[in-house]
């Protein structure tokens, strides 16, 4: 099963980029958790290291077998993840009014993270079979639409609108990438324009508040408005070279809300300045470019689309998270890949990297 040629083809570049980003993340997390007197946070750094350990193991599992095996198993993987989402709604643990976690012994899993990978696999399978010159017609899009709608509704019920929207973005951009028939695209755009305002009525009060707050930050000076102000002060005060490792005053004084998860980029920006933020963004850009190049080189349509899906997933998360902390986007709970604290997010990202490596290693193997 294990071909020596595969070892020779191992994508060291991809591994290097990933390791660099992970180091960035761990250093920043150390900073964020060393802050203040919140002793619980002190263990977060250690916990994240453990997650990375598990992540590496999962990643290895994701490239030792031939990724083409994912094709026939796509539906099973998808259904299993949907099953987990249903289980969350039934047995999930309540944290601050929402049910997003499943307790498996001592660890808690967030199935809404795993479903991202599952839907990328199942769509890659569908699109690699059906794609044609003129693009998809509306009728051909019914299946992807259903595939996306089921987990979306389950996630929104938790409620976790941010992750739900992330799912829609992944599915939407994969579909657009594959091409939609012109007329169908116009229809879709048209109905979208009609229906999007209607979505407003389904949003919960606080979700509407967030959007309105984004449009006018003065609306909620005590909540999101305050967070954004503090985040902007933290980022801006980093200036060009930053205040230095562990020197971030905004962060140290716990001015930043959720500094170890959603707002971790602000901690980085404060301590390492423009130098640090640009470096991290550059690494992310390299990672994305690498992902696209793997898609480009892959000779198997399933593998290509899979690589594109994983790449867009990482892209949207980076864009939305950093855009949010810089005050470019509404505050939604989206973690920064490899950097934010959180086991499920790390595992999901490492699965993604594992699959990319898998595709990359087997790029010369024809079916």
């Amino acid at each position, binding site marked *: 099963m294990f071909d020596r040629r595969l070892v020779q083809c191992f994508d060291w570049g991809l591994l290097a980029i990933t390791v660099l980003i992970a180091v960035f993340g761990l250093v920043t997390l150390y900073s964020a958790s060393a802050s203040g007197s919140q002793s619980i946070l002190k263990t977060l750094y250690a916990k994240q290291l453990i997650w990375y350990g598990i992540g590496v193991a999962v990643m290895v599992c994701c490239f030792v077998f031939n990724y083409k095996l994912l094709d026939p198993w796509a539906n099973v993987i998808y259904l299993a993840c949907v099953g987990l989402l249903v289980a969350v709604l039934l047995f999930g643990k309540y944290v601050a009014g929402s049910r997003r976690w499943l307790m498996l012994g001592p660890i808690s899993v967030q199935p809404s993270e795993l479903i991202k990978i599952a839907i990328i696999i199942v769509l890659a399978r569908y699109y690699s079979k059906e794609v044609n010159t003129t693009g998809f017609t509306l009728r051909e899009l019914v299946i992807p639409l259903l595939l996306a709608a089921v987990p979306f509704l389950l996630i929104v019920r938790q409620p976790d609108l941010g992750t739900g929207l992330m799912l829609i973005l992944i599915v939407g951009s994969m579909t657009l990438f594959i091409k939609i028939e012109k007329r169908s695209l116009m229809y879709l755009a048209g109905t979208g324009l009609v229906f999007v305002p209607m979505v407003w009525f389904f949003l919960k009060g606080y979700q509407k508040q967030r959007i309105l707050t984004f449009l006018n930050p003065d609306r909620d*000076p005590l909540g999101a408005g305050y967070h954004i102000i503090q985040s902007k002060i933290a980022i*801006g005060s980093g200036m060009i070279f930053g205040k230095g490792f562990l020197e971030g005053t*905004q962060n140290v*004084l716990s*001015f930043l809300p959720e500094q170890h998860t959603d707002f971790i980029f602000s901690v980085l920006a404060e301590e390492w300045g423009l130098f640090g933020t640009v470096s991290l963004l550059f690494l992310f850009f390299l990672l994305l470019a690498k992902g696209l190049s793997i898609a480009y080189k892959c000779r198997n*349509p399933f593998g290509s689309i899979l690589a*594109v899906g994983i790449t867009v997933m990482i892209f949207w998360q980076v864009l939305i998270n950093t855009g949010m902390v810089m005050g470019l986007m509404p505050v939604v709970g989206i973690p920064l890949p490899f950097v934010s604290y959180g086991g499920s997010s790390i595992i999901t990202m490492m699965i993604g990297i594992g699959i990319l490596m898998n595709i990359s290693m087997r790029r010369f193997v024809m079916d």
Partner: protein
Amino acid sequence: MNNYFKSADSNWFRQRLTGVLLFIVAAFAVLLVRLFYLQVIRGDEYRRLSESNCIRLQYISPQRGLIFDRNGELLVDNRPSFDLSIILKDARPLTQTLEKLSGYINVPVEQFAETITRNKSVPSYKPILLQADVGRDIMAAVQVHQYDLPGVEITVTPCRHYIYEQSAAHLIGYLGEINGEELRSGKFPETRGGDYIGRYGVEKIYESYLHGTGGGRQVEVNVRGQVVNVLKTVDAGQGHEVYLTIDSALQRKAETLLAGRAGAVVAMDPDTGEILAMASSPSFDQNEFVGGISKDQWRSLLSNPDKPLQNKTIQAVYPPASTYKIITAIAGLEEGIIDEHTEFTCYGSYKFGDRRFRCWRKQGHGALAVEEALSQSCDVFFYQLGQRLGVDKLAEYANRCGLGVKTGLHLENEESGLIPTSKWKKRKTGISWQAGETLSVAIGQGYNLVTPMQMAVFMAAVANGGNRPEPILVRRICSVNGDVLLENKPRIVDRLPFSKTTLDLVKKGLWQVVNGKTGTAKIAHLKDIEISGKTGTAQVFSHKSKDDRDDDLSDHLKPHAWFVAYAPSDHPRIAVSVIIEHGEHGASAAGPVARDLIQFYMGEQSAVSGQAS
């Protein structure tokens, strides 16, 4: 054969990948521009802001809604509480500041240190409460030495104030600090740690209306932690105003009449079911709960045998005793077992099987019909009537009259009481109903248990001609600008199960109780107001031998005294139910309470109408 991947030319796919790459480049360019703007162009400005750490969030507590009585008299408001707190970040050097503070206000420094250790997880820029509700002397001392006490501040928060302490405590209720579990539950969206929420009574039931919404300020502070600029403010929203149905003066009158005794009084408007007074004695001071009640105080409230925390009007159950004879009479008349003229003879006791059931009057009442039997409360008459009706018929009438069922009052933990049936006993004890037990039940002893509220509602229904109203405690809830958010309209739960003739006859009997020559409650007679009512003496235990005399009993074994009434007899304006625990005789202990309460209320009413005309 359209599948692109199957054709050799994959240019199409590559083109699309280029598109994606361009999109990503564009997106990253936007991020970079934004970073450049924040970190370079505005970097100096943000660096300055971050170094003084000057933007802080201050919480503004909401003003809890006010509570008024039916006449708009204020019962519960808020007073300012001056709280002493410290912001660690500003209080540098900390030990020195604490020592100085301790010297100025005479509080041992260890006490502060302890509070600070307990709040270790609070971020250093957030205030830690050292002492809530400090006196004027401490406030003055801190303010005078403010220059010497960096980071020490006195803040003003609204604090609940019950204007008439102990008055209506059971129905208004009290507050308690919200706990972590409640905070996490999401049921109290407007609260935050340290907030107080309703724990009992109206304060609890209408918490969502009363609480109000918290506000806050983004402020800019200087290095000493002093506010130099208010950036943005969100005002706190005041809680909504609750208008109770009670008449505050009447409530206090009822409480005075109960003073020193354990018992309960309910007064009700018979037409609307609005509760005019609802007193339970002994009571407690709700103000003691403001700012947290001490363990000792709480323990002493719990261990008091007279149960001051229990709302005896709805949570305590008593045998209805002779007041239940009204039910027996109604059932007998409606079932055609007796009519107006049917007479039974009382020789002081009634032999049933091998047991002798005594009448309260040893020498007997002689032959009497239902009206007189009610007015003299003859036990033997009702033994015989009850025996003919049977326990299940009696229970049917009692339930329809609202006894043994919850009245639906909007307060927590209302007891339903108990009206026994033969089925109930079989299920409960496994033993069949004994015919002799029906005799005790017919005069309101035995298993029967009712609440004072049930009796008040029943009296209200008799008084108004047979409509059993739902008791109402809150008339309406309004926002501060007067919008009505909730209005409780009078509602009829059921019709009492009797005809006009039966009602008239019963009412005549009840009139005789107070106004007749031989009535048992002559003591409640008033010259200018005609009262109708019924006494009751509820035994706490059953007499073992017929020689037992109540006089010899120790206090806690003495019977409870009941008096239920309405007035004026011809056009009732008020229905009353009174119970005095261990008061011995209904007439002597409970009668005067009801009488004085009615007199007070009618006096108040005529004063109001006098002013109006």
